[in-house]
């Protein structure tokens, strides 16, 4: 029986937890032991997977825990992300294959993580895209380059095959535009606000955040929401479950909405791929690994070109008449709107 150990810092509802979930779901014959250091509310995500064991050690027990389990259990692979300090505690007795995974698109961050790793202890360096592989290879000594392997993140096929008609969310006469992310430099939430503010009032921004105990940051963001006069045109949702996300994608699609990514870089672009695989019109800044996805529903826009993003949303997700579903505005009206809204 193949047994895999993955070690990461935060057990939250998004990000790496989803990566681990989909890997384990795609390989039910493997046992996946997931060891996290901090509890950020994501532990219940794995409840429906019988082949997954999740443990959260806390910072004071992490080292002892890794020492013990790597001695007691035979792992075919041990995968570490960001917790490079845990590598030295891996017991060599079963000679496991030790891999370090990079899930950041930022060169500086990769460099920082590399600076903490003893490459001699590693059998491989994993990245989720060819784009990330190029960046990583440039940072490595030539003797280590062959360790780089591309392993794309997996999407959940059952999730994507769902086609729910009865879902729990109601949009009235608004057209929802979905955004998923965090308040950090990568996800670039402010450009999403600018895009929504540039659209007609019938468009409604739906922001799904992965957030814990960041009251001050959230407060600052709400200030920005008011600055853009978006307080009635934005819904901010926190830490959604898989079933809520399923309903959200489904209801946005049924209402003729779209997905919008304003990330300034992506090591893989999970949410973009997921939205597009769900056949949601997906508008994203052309960054990082996004060109590696082969979904026709992904429409890439020059990074930071909010006007282009607005045009594309108007084209792909025109406002629907509530009764007959026909577009509310003609193309001529849209062009006129853009001319006034953008250029004043």
């Amino acid at each position, binding site marked *: 029986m193949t047994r895999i150990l993955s070690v990461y810092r935060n057990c939250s509802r998004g990000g790496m937890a989803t990566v681990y979930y989909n890997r384990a779901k795609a390989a039910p014959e493997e046992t996946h032991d997931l060891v996290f250091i901090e509890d950020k509310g994501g532990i219940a995500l794995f409840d429906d997977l019988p082949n997954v064991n999740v443990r959260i*050690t806390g910072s004071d027990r992490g080292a002892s825990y890794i020492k013990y389990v790597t001695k007691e259990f035979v792992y075919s692979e041990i995968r570490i992300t960001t917790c490079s300090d845990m590598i030295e505690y891996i017991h060599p007795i079963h000679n496991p294959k030790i891999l370090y995974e990079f899930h950041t698109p930022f060169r500086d961050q990769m460099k920082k993580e590399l600076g903490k790793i003893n490459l001699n202890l590693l059998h491989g360096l994993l990245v989720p895209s060819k784009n990330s592989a190029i960046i990583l290879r440039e940072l490595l000594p030539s003797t280590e380059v062959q360790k780089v392997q591309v392993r794309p993140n997996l999407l959940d096929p059952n999730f994507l095959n769902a086609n729910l008609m009865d879902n729990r969310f109601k949009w009235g006469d608004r057209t929802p535009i979905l955004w998923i992310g965090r308040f950090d430099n990568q996800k670039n939430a402010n450009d999403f606000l600018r895009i929504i503010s540039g659209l007609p009032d019938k468009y409604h921004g739906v922001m799904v955040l992965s957030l814990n105990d960041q009251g001050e940051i959230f407060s600052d963001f709400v200030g920005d929401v008011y600055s853009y006069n978006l307080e009635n045109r934005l819904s901010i949702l926190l830490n959604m479950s898989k079933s809520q996300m399923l309903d959200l994608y489904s209801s946005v699609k049924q209402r003729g909405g779209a997905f919008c990514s304003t990330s300034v870089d992506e090591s893989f672009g999970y949410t973009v791929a997921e939205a597009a695989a769900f056949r949601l019109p997906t508008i994203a800044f052309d960054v990082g690994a996004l060109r590696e996805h082969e979904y026709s529903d992904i429409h890439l826009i020059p990074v930071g070109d909010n006007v282009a993003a607005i045009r594309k949303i108007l084209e792909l997700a025109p406002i629907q008449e509530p009764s007959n579903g026909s577009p509310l505005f003609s193309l001529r009206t849209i062009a006129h709107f853009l001319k006034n809204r953008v250029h004043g």
Partner: protein
Amino acid sequence: MQTNNFVNNDLELPFEIKAQELLFFVEESRDVNIVLRASVDEAHSHKADIGKAALVVLIFLDKDEHVILPSTELPISPNLGTYRYLNVSEDGSAETSITVRIPKNATKLKIQFRSWRAEIPVRLLDISIAQQNHESATPIKLLENLLSKRNPSRPIFIIYTTAPQMGHPSITLRSNRFALGLAKQGALVLFFPFGGANQNNMQYGDDIIQFQRTYLTEVLDVVSAARMNNVTFICSAFSDHQAVCAIDYARICGWKTVYECRDDMEEFRRSGYAKWHYPRLEMRAVDMASTVTAVSPRLQQKMRELSKRKRIVHLIPNGVSDDFLAKSKHARHLSVLSSRSKMKVVGYIGHLTSSWFDWPLVIRAAAAAPDLEFQLIGFGEPKNLELPENVKLLGPKTHDEFISISKDWGVGIIPFIPSKLTYGVDPNKLYEYLALALPVVSAPMGGVTESPMTEVYYNTTDFLPLLQKSLETHYSARDLEVLEAYLESCRWPNRISAATQLIEAVQ
């Protein structure tokens, strides 16, 4: 609880711990609690390291007897796994209690006993093992179970509040009263108290379930997944980021939402409390909720100012419980009311913190009126107070004790330091004083200007004259009628009814 479900039961107690094992059947996702008693001989009982003389190692096994990934709730040794040292004593009274969640796929628990200091023999005297439902699973599972049988159109109220848990031994605030009142009307109430609720208090009566605040998103998920369509989310003074996002979530589910302003949280934060509060988040709650209420005119005005669209904010003050009205009914007689004008005792019940209780004012008044006695019920007074002899600190008292003590009072006071915080308060003690037919002298705040038998001082120099005036006032049967009518309008059921009518009026 199941007890002592041993697989092998061939160990005879007591035994000297060397390297024995016990195997026990378990059920995954429950908690197992193990209680052990162990002893050492007198010769060893005073050694410094008897606390490390023996230990137990806990190992969970699956149905194929494979070892399961160890729990993280106990200390872990890189060599042994999860363990706990045994508490020991000469008389064997020392207990070691271990509670750990049974992991997924576990069917057996192996307990290994190990001597860890060979020179200190340890005897195991007793062991008991019991399984119970895991605490965090209980309220969510309970909710799912209830919802599966519930008509989707029956009302559900989710109350997210700064109030304490239901059943708190000494504090019952507005949100607690609302929860009780709504449950009495047939609603299911999902209650999120500020400090969470004790494990054995998760289900409060048939129709109130309490949750830790960390479960809010999960509860919203469960309720919306069950397609409940008559749901109201009430944020009661606790507009943190969770609540603000919950209001947004409730809106897109088609639920009703309420923001209830009970205190000036911005001022609490300025005073060093309520560090979770940010005015912008309260602003968003006010703007996004379908109904906004406030307990006092000052807070009503503040919420209007906070709202970008200057929305209507409804005034629903605090109130008085039917229970207290019944207990104090004996005091609402003309004879009792008349007798108060002969009393020379000034009374107060409540917190005595110098953050808002005007100690300098009360001390000055007491010093200037040695013929009056000031009786103060409560706690939180500053240290090193130099009090005149006619100021008595009675300490905290129960409601029944307060009712008894107050029969000797001539007037009840609310001497708060004027501040943004106190102006916004609608003091519960006002209603309690009046229920006892106790005239009131108060600093300006809340609804005190609208209440009968109440004098309000706007300058501290007016405090003592108003006290004396109040003590000399003779009240009539007409005053008593007005008082009864006022108290009737202030009953908590009427406050709750006013709130629910507002909520239902929203399209």
